[in-house]
């Protein structure tokens, strides 16, 4: 496959960036999108040019590191797929592909396609955890969890924190991420003691980081590689309302 790429190049956080065109030939349709970029970088390095910086780690769709907006879609055109699991067979010979970083004020560009997502870490630090006593692990059946709750908690816990929801949201909101974390713990008995302070603290950290508000357009869910639904945002809203009113 022969492709034309237009890639966001930005030398560092302070510098201005721009879309730079590249051409690449001989791309296997069995290559992953990141492997295609690896090949491009090998060419760039051989030519003495600066390779394109992009985030990646596990390359099996579970770590949440890869973060490319491909032709205007976070993680590219294939539904329920991270960038690393996207393969070049999704594209056609001769295509022009635009590659940009996540675009959000709280996710400043570090270099090229790499953004700083510590704003998500601050949201987690504000309540995305449970306090558990040390010592021997409790028996597995000490705190029974109804199957439906366990399934719903697991579905929310599938969030890998990649930030595609923020990248897709017209308001640059981090609600789907935050809601997945809040709902995951709110579904479990272990999450109850800190349920109120968790939601209040995380919403405050979310807003303080500069993320926008949710307008329920559903772009986040459509972009989510783990297909997390809008119902988690509804339950986040409900938990917040109860906690803020002091009734939770």
């Amino acid at each position, binding site marked *: 496959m022969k492709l034309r790429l237009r890639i966001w190049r930005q030398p560092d956080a302070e510098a201005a960036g721009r879309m730079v065109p590249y051409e690449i030939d001989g791309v296997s349709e069995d290559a992953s999108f990141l492997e295609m970029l690896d090949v491009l970088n090998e060419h760039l390095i051989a030519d003495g040019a600066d390779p394109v910086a992009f985030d990646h780690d596990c390359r099996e769709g579970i770590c949440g590191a890869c973060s490319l907006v491909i032709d*205007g879609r976070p993680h590219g055109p294939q539904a329920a797929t991270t960038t690393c699991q996207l393969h070049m067979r999704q594209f056609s010979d001769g295509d022009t592909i635009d590659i*940009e970083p996540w675009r959000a004020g*709280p996710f400043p560009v570090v270099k090229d396609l790499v953004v700083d997502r510590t704003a998500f870490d601050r949201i987690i630090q504000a309540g995305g955890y449970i306090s558990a006593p040390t010592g021997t692990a409790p028996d597995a059946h000490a705190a029974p969890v109804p199957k439906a709750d366990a399934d719903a908690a697991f579905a929310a816990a599938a969030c890998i924190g990649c930030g595609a929801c923020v990248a897709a949201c017209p308001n640059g909101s981090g609600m789907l991420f935050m809601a997945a974390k809040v709902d995951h713990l709110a579904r479990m008995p272990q999450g109850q003691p800190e349920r109120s302070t968790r939601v209040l603290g995380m919403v405050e950290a*979310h*807003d*303080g980081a500069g993320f926008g508000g949710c307008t329920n357009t559903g772009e986040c869910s459509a972009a989510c590689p783990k297909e997390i639904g809008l119902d988690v945002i509804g339950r986040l809203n409900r938990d917040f309302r109860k906690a803020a009113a002091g009734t939770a």
Partner: protein
Amino acid sequence: MSTELRSRPAASGPAAGAGHAPRWRSSIGLKIIMAVSGIALVGFIVAHMAGNLHVFEGPERMNEYAEGLRTFGEPLLPRESLLWAMRLGLIAAAAAHIASSVALTRRASRARPVKYASRKAARGEAAHAAATMRWGAIVIAAFVVWHLLDLTFRAVNPVKDVPDAYGAVVATFAPERWPVTVFYLAALVALGFHLRHGIWSAVQTIAGPSAVWRRRWRAAALVTAVTVVAGFAAVPLAVSFGLVS
């Protein structure tokens, strides 16, 4: 390869110990204000639409209805008690709705300082909303100003006699004043899209329904929006085409 990575710190949250902002000013707090004020406005809109249909019962019944709104509760309550309670409530709801939406819109634009070079059409569950809510709101606000000048204050209406509500409606939608009717219908389309997203969105914000109930509420919002648009559009169209004169 040595590449110096310089990371610009993202906007930080409130300093430790600085206390937290009031909950109602958080993004979800403002959404709840939007949702509650929006539901109040929807209630008014549905009642207003139903009341308008008295036009089809003729001038006497329509004007009786209009007068009834003024004399409601008499002699126990002063004249126009209901009307002024409605007006004050509507002003409060509209002010809260607009103020919270302006605050949220400003936060949203700050949250995406650099736009995407490549943009694709929205594909979310409520993909139309992003394109229609904010622009539609401006059309609706402009229409409300015109509508008050036209049929409440009668500043731009040929019929200055306030008790003659029927006459004012017939005069404003007269065929030769067709731009008025077109503006009215355009604002209705904007209102319809606004309700279609706004109603279920308010439920999502306040109640947080399950996926099944979310679909049902979205359907209910669509039915309400279509009913409201049809009910409101019937009056000007009937006057313009001479069915009501």
